[in-house]
């Protein structure tokens, strides 16, 4: 055992003890802080999962959709063209990257309504829906517009404003140059089709527009002037032909 008889020796020993205590305290505090952060992240994930479940099942019930599906919040992986959990395992997966664009409950509902529509399609066709799912996979461009429109119906029946689908898509989907050989439609084309669908089916939301002061909706109005002129022409002429939006 070390015995310090002189004052300098005792002082140096005390310094070492103090240093060890400080290092130990730092470990304890940082460990606790990390644990608190982890706990907070888990709590946030749980809250998000809870919110998605509540909105998702509300849409299913309000629309009397008698097809089973579940909702999963995924904050680690990214959406991929190869993965279609909605079609393969009837799971509506909400990726953090996608849902980050949603500002309010209506925009989350917009995202979910679209995915519910896609997942419900996996129940149609031969072999318990395998063929129906394959059709969606083979011709995603064709079904994209169908899902957008049905999502509007689902939102309305569940009490959400369908204009949230416009604001959500407007801020979260890129605008490509061409869609001739693409698997997806131009985002501007999708938005114009949704707008036309709301115009003919749910004009109530356009006349009593709650989104007119919304920056993203205003941006949609600004960027869709040409497409809306085409719609105006269709309305004025009473034509039933599908408009070729840009």
């Amino acid at each position: 055992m070390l015995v310090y008889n002189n004052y300098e020796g005792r002082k140096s020993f005390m310094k070492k003890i103090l240093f060890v205590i400080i290092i130990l305290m730092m470990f304890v505090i940082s460990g606790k802080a990390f644990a608190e952060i982890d706990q907070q992240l888990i709590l946030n994930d749980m809250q998000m999962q809870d919110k998605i479940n509540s909105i998702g099942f509300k849409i299913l019930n309000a629309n009397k959709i008698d097809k089973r599906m579940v909702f999963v919040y995924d904050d680690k992986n990214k959406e991929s063209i190869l993965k279609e959990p909605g079609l393969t395992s009837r799971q509506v997966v909400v990726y953090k990257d996608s849902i980050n664009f949603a500002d309010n409950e209506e925009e989350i509902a917009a995202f979910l309504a679209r995915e519910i529509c896609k997942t419900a399609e996996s129940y149609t066709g031969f072999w318990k829906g395998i063929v129906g799912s394959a059709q969606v996979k083979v011709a995603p461009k064709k079904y994209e517009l169908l899902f957008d429109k049905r999502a509007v119906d689902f939102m309305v029946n569940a009490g959400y404003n369908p204009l949230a689908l416009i604001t959500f898509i407007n801020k979260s989907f890129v605008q490509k140059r061409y869609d001739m050989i693409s698997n997806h439609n131009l985002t501007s084309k999708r938005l114009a089709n949704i707008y036309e669908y709301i115009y003919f089916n749910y004009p109530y939301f356009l006349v009593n527009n709650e989104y007119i002061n919304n920056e993203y909706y205003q941006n949609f109005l600004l960027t869709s002037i040409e497409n809306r002129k085409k719609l105006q022409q269709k309305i004025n002429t009473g034509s039933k032909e599908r408009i070729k939006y840009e």
Partner: protein
Amino acid sequence: MSKYFKLYFLFIYFIVSSYTACAQDLIQDELVEQTLRDKEIKEIIVNADYNYEDLFSIPIKLQVSEKITTKHNIQEGDVINLRVKQIVKYNEKVILNQNTIVKGKIKVYTTKGMNGIPGQIVLDDFELPGIDSRKIKGTFTKRGLDLTLYVLPIKWALTPIPFVGSFTNLIFGGSAEITPRDTIILYYYPNWHK
């Protein structure tokens, strides 16, 4: 006029003028202003107070009055007339007579596509006289001739040979048609809504 009253007046003027300036900056939807503002618009019915406990239901058989097909241009949102095929009774009381006209809507449709993908029509939003639409279950979907079951395996078998798999793109599915011969069955659940 007191000094404070002038300041107060200036403050109010500033608030009102800045608000109107902001309002003028907003883009207004002229299409809506010109074409919808004076029209009578129906309120939206939200299906919020549901209770799906009850199992008792009454089938309602309908048929369209005219053929609807995706070959010709149809408009999503168009109201169509349907006829009740058989008399509908509930508690020994007639609730729908035969040949009663019922309204429905063409909700969405897709045209036939490449690789044998069929066209489809979805009918919904049925308005049956004297029946709450929230107690009706049934969306009618009709598809055309579906060839994907045969075309897709051929496509995938040919895909390893460059460009050959794409030839199946020339095979189209059938257009969807709803004729008066088709029976559209809806289910009326009298006790579903709270």
